[in-house]
């Protein structure tokens, strides 16, 4: 036991997804002392395994008006405060030959009620606006959908939390909630990096563990009825569509095609899974088949577009407290005050909701924390831009203009990834500018920045921060270069080799469900390079 942790925080936040990140930021901005703990790496739960749709709310307008109005409000807020994480693409809700056109007017009315702007388009015009759409569409409605990069969004919230004094720990798993006379007073953690247990104490503990919140609550002796719903998605190797494409019907499987960066994503399936399967997210052949079949209906050219990866995440759905059967699932935000609900003070849970309503969730959770701590400070997260999105900050362009007349590919990519924060990436020296990953334009400078500032512990973390190995080469050679760099700065060589082996395994997990065509060709090549030529084996190191 490490005894050196007698400091008591105002609040400990469990979970390094977007909800935890947003709550850490909000709490820190309101002057609280904050510790955030995450068992793996940031954005490894649902936050790193979703569709990245910046909902306009239209999808929920007919079935869940409350979610719809939350979405449109937050949609507008994120465009302001998280500009570098958002693509303002707009979206179409299309009626295909097999869909009922009558739904369209009901849909448009419901959007109007929720405050979502719509525009009914003539099918011809829609085809011109979005050439990739199924040419047989019967109708189309334009809505203010967009795309949001969950990794970037989470990281800029984390960074801002840090700027406001929060402490962040990755690789720290909560193994127990320490309670004393009906009060949660701290957490026991297992530090995976050092293989040791530590304890930290706080006045309030916030459970922002997504679907794992069920287990975390149980550590405090509390039951939350959670229903894991697995959703699978496919990433395509290039961006087929400019706008988000949705089906104009009640929400169903595989009916959204979201463009982002240079790729697009079709999703999702939805399947209840047993709770003991939530850490075992695989995509089945049947999932792949449904996604392709339905995707091609939205945009026929998907049939011939290369699939890069398949992955699945779990939605944290919560059953209403008065409904033990779990039929009455809420898709909205769930904030539980366990003092009122279960008689345990110092412990609250924030879950449910969506990626894009994280800020509102954080605000509600922080309001409750502040109330309990009798802190009277207004929430400012809806007004203050996130780091990387500050409008007035032109220093990146100025700084780089001094060095180059035009920005290099790596600098442009870095600016896209990190917004104005890219100014912290070293440039101008031939060493820092050298490219580690050619497909994604990741330079040594960016890798070093990520290692130093962005809590990178291994290659997979690095991929989440910089997109190293995310491109079409799928991590063949750049992974090795990046491993070499990690080895110089933070890993023992033996660890770095294991790390490389894990990285390749992790990529394979996403590729094996779709391992045909160019994907299998490249996987075979990668195997020859790493195992054949390098002699890399998972247990060799």
């Amino acid at each position, binding site marked *: 036991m490490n005894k050196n942790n007698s400091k008591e925080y105002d609040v400990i936040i469990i979970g390094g997804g977007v909800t935890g990140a947003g709550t850490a930021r909000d709490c820190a901005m309101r002057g609280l002392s904050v510790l955030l703990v995450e068992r793996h790496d940031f954005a490894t739960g649902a936050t790193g395994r979703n569709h990245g749709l910046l909902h306009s709310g239209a999808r929920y307008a007919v079935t869940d008006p409350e979610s719809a109005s939350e979405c449109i409000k937050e949609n507008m807020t994120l465009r302001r405060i998280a500009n570098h994480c958002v693509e303002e693409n707009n979206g179409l809700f299309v009626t295909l030959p097999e869909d009922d056109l009558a739904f369209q007017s009901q849909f448009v009315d419901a959007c109007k009620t929720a405050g979502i702007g719509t525009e009914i388009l003539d099918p011809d015009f829609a085809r011109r606006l979005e050439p990739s759409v199924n040419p047989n569409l019967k109708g189309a409605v334009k809505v203010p959908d967009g795309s949001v990069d969950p990794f970037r969004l989470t990281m800029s919230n984390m960074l801002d939390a840090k700027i406001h004094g929060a402490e962040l720990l990755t690789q720290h798993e909560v193994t127990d909630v320490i309670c004393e006379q009906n009060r949660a007073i701290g957490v026991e953690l297992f530090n995976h990096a050092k293989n040791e247990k530590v304890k930290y104490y706080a006045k309030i503990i916030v459970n922002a563990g997504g679907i794992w919140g069920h287990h975390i609550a149980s550590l405090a002796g509390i039951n939350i009825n959670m229903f894991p719903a697995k959703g699978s998605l496919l990433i395509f190797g290039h961006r087929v569509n400019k706008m988000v494409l949705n089906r104009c019907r009640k929400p169903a499987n595989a009916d959204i095609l979201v463009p982002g960066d240079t790729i697009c994503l079709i999703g999702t399936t939805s399947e209840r899974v047993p709770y003991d399967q939530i850490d075992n997210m*695989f995509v089945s*052949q049947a999932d792949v088949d449904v996604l*392709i079949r339905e995707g091609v209906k939205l945009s026929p050219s998907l049939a011939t577009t290369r699939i890069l990866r398949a992955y699945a995440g779990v939605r944290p759905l919560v059953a209403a407290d008065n409904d033990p059967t779990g039929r009455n699932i809420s898709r909205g935000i769930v904030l539980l005050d366990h003092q009122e609900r279960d008689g345990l003070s110092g412990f609250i849970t924030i879950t449910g909701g969506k990626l894009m309503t994280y800020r509102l969730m954080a605000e509600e959770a922080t309001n409750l924390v502040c109330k309990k701590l009798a802190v009277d400070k207004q929430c400012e997260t809806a007004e203050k831009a996130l780091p990387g999105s500050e409008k007035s900050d032109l220093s990146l362009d100025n700084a780089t203009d001094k060095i180059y007349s035009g920005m*290099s*590919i*790596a600098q442009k990519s870095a600016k896209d990834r990190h917004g104005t924060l890219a100014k912290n990436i070293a440039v101008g020296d*031939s*060493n820092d*500018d*050298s*490219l*580690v990953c*050619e497909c994604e334009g990741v*330079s*040594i400078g960016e890798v070093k920045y990520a290692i130093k500032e962005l809590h990178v512990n291994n290659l997979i973390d690095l991929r989440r921060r910089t997109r190293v190995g995310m491109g079409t080469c799928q991590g063949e*050679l750049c992974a*090795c*270069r990046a*491993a*070499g*760099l990690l*080895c*110089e700065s933070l890993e*023992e*060589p*033996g660890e*770095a*080799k294991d790390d490389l*082996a894990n990285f*390749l*395994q992790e*990529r*394979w*997990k996403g590729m*094996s469900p779709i*391992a*045909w*065509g160019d994907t*299998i*060709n*490249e996987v*075979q*090549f990668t*195997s*020859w*390079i790493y*195992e*054949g*030529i*390098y*002699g*890399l*084996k*998972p247990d*060799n190191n």
Partner: protein
Amino acid sequence: MKFDNIIIGGGLSGLTCGIKLAELGKKCAIVSSGQSAIHFFSGSLDLLGKVNGEEVSNPLESIKTLADNHPYQRVGIDNMTRLADEVPQFLDRAGLKFSGNANQNHFVLTPMGVMKPTWLTIEDFTRFETKDSFPWKKALIINFSGFLDFHTLFIKDGLKKLDVTTQIKNVSMKQFEAIRKNPSEMRSTNIAKVFDNGDALDEFAQKANDLSEGFDVVILPAVFGLLNKQIVSEIKAKILKPLVLLPAVPPSVPGIRSQILLRKRFQALGGTYFLGDNVEEGFFENNRLVAIATNNHGDIKLKADQFILASGSFYSKGIVATRDKVYEPIFGLDVNGETNGSEWKDEKFFNDQPYMHFGVKTDSQFHAMINGEPVENLFVAGSVLGGANALKEGSGAGISLLTSLHVAEQILK
């Protein structure tokens, strides 16, 4: 256009077939669409490194234990023994010096710092007779500043396990400044081009020699002699301490050189090499392939008495997988591996992957088959053949070389 033999694919197999046939007076053409596996070559040709996960010491002996449908079994142990013996001279005639023994694997040090069993190693690299000892105690690893493709710490780590103490030094060379300015140019082939011109070599050797005071051996990335083969012996002569070269991240400098020398040998023997041309389809008559059509030749069909398919595995598109089937794309030949997509692969990346065994089926004389019927004059050689996981076995080049030489002999009979 008419030839005695046409070979589809210009990798190690295709070139081996072509050279062997041309050496014996055949008028041959090779049609090759692109890069081959030799571009990424480690520097060592493997015959058989492992059987059922156990390291093999005598490849020829262990071949007897392989499954009946293994390509080596179809060549036959006597032929294997004889042909394996021929290979070093065969390569030597192309200007490629390899050494090793088919009855006794030796070891090479990989860029991860591990010892790997192999059959023949190109003169650039060092052969080790055992896997658990390194002849020197104090090693100096030298890398070029800004060169990301040589992972010195991995090598150091591997050598530590062999009780070798190592130091790593970086050397800056003004001759590399131009390539370092471009963020993606500092790669092994570009460094090799600078050395090929000769002028940087003396200066580098001088620096290396100064640094190597007090060390027993110098370790460098294999970035010498891309087009100018002499550079390899020159650097070895100029570095005063024993020199161990290790592969850098591919493409491989000795690999590209090998490909070029084999192609030149084929052309010097009168062979015709159609580079960057893709064979699209074949025309059959009575169980014989009479002609092929290629992308660049349009309506002009290429005819020959015998054809050899040496189009490689998945990575060279010699075989192709779609969502629900595996097929041979030029002729629609019979393949093994037409199973359900979900059974192609193991969820663990480093396990023996079923798809690695997939390839074109042949009869016992390496004739291709269509619907179970052998095509009399279409032979199959190299990694397009199914029946083995060459990666797990360490049999990549062995299968390519020996099935190719064997097929050439069948044709010459």
